């Protein structure tokens, strides 16, 4: 069977945030207390995963400046126009082609298009805040959007989320599935954020920071932020397990 020799680099649970991270208060009642049950030999059920090349996407699914407009006459969203782009690679630097990358975010004022978000900042009638795309042959993806605003949330008496975009990537298997958040280089709210602080290793925080890329920005149009995503690497095995 083809999956007998397939294996991914072990997920480093000390690198990712722990389930129980009391500084992020909601995690306290939502974190398992029992140990995870480790599979030494994941099966085809864990090693395989969906391929979305046949998912039919709309022409503006990756363009948040246009994908919530009801008609041509409606204005563009408020806010700083940006390109968010990057490459999905595995831990060995191998590009991950044709994989689904999805994202969602608040508008320029820090308000989400969600019925439970009651922040003072108004909704933007021209902005939905959701995008999706597939990586190309070399693993590149690209979105056009506006930079989301920071917003307050009830954790500590005065907690604010840094500007961020939620990013979801599938990778080649359900074992590589990852949801993260992209923060913006230089944002002074990053080191103050309880959700960022769920990570123990400052190096891990660096993997979530989108970098200003002037070369990819468009003069008189928009800035660009590069955000590469690294998913678990598939190990090559050369020997039969006998």
């Amino acid at each position: 069977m083809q999956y007998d020799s397939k294996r991914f680099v072990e997920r480093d649970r000390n690198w990712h945030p722990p389930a129980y991270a009391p500084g992020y208060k909601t995690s306290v009642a939502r974190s398992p207390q029992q140990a995870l049950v480790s599979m030494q030999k994941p099966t085809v059920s864990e090693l395989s995963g969906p391929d979305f090349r046949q998912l039919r996407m709309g022409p503006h699914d990756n363009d948040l400046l246009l994908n919530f407009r009801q008609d041509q006459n409606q204005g563009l969203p408020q806010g700083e126009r940006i390109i968010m782009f990057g490459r999905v690679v595995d831990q060995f630097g191998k590009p991950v082609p044709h994989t689904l990358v999805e994202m969602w975010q608040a508008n320029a004022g820090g308000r989400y298009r969600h019925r439970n978000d009651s922040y003072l900042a108004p909704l933007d009638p021209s902005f939905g805040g959701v995008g999706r795309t597939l990586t190309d042959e070399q693993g590149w993806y690209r979105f056009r959007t506006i930079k989301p605003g920071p917003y307050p949330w009830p954790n500590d008496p005065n907690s604010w989320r840094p500007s961020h975009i939620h990013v979801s990537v599938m990778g080649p298997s359900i074992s590589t599935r990852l949801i993260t958040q992209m923060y913006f280089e230089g944002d002074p709210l990053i080191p103050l954020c309880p959700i960022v602080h769920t990570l123990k290793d400052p190096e891990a925080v660096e993997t979530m920071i989108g970098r200003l890329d002037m070369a990819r920005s468009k003069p008189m149009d928009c800035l660009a932020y590069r955000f590469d995503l690294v998913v678990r690497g598939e190990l090559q095995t050369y020997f039969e397990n006998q």
Partner: protein
Amino acid sequence: MNQPNSRPTSELMLRETASQTAGPYVHIGLALAAAGNPTRDEEIWNEMARPEAEGEHIEVVGTVIDGNGDLVRDAFIEAWQANSNGEYQPEFDLEKPFNSFGRTATTFDHGSEWSLTTVKPGPVAHASGQSQAPHINLAIFARGINIQLQTRLYFDDEAEANASCPVLSRIESPTRRQTLIARREEVDGKVRYRLDIRLQGEGETVFFDF
């Protein structure tokens, strides 16, 4: 390999991008219907099997419950399962009668149940030669969950297959194995399996690392 925001773990290998919670508004990004927002032409959602799909048609439902015993109303769940012959169908295509991949969510509606419309998976091959009992892999994402929780759903009318499943028997505590077994119900002549996912405390669901 020199990339702006990636970190080498050794000369040969990069570190995985770190996980962050999907947050309270995950539905607007990945479950647009559950958020009550306009949907696109094609969405990845909870009808994994259309009526013409081969196999026993079932509904799978449940709640997600936190350590206080309260409903988690903002969870997002991904499902991955074999078809009725025990084979995975990786090519996601809404034109096909069955897809191995589906998504669902709990909501702020009354019962706050997630649900999947699917067919009962067949037994799945295993390297040991002993097949795995029919199961659905589930991944749970939500506010307060920093990295997805991975579990499996099994079926209570597969007692024999469950008893010999090489993965289920990896769980040392027989009591805890029961946390993965969905109960069969028949509602209006339709077959439904129910599994409540308990994130913490009494009856805590088994979650896997793989």
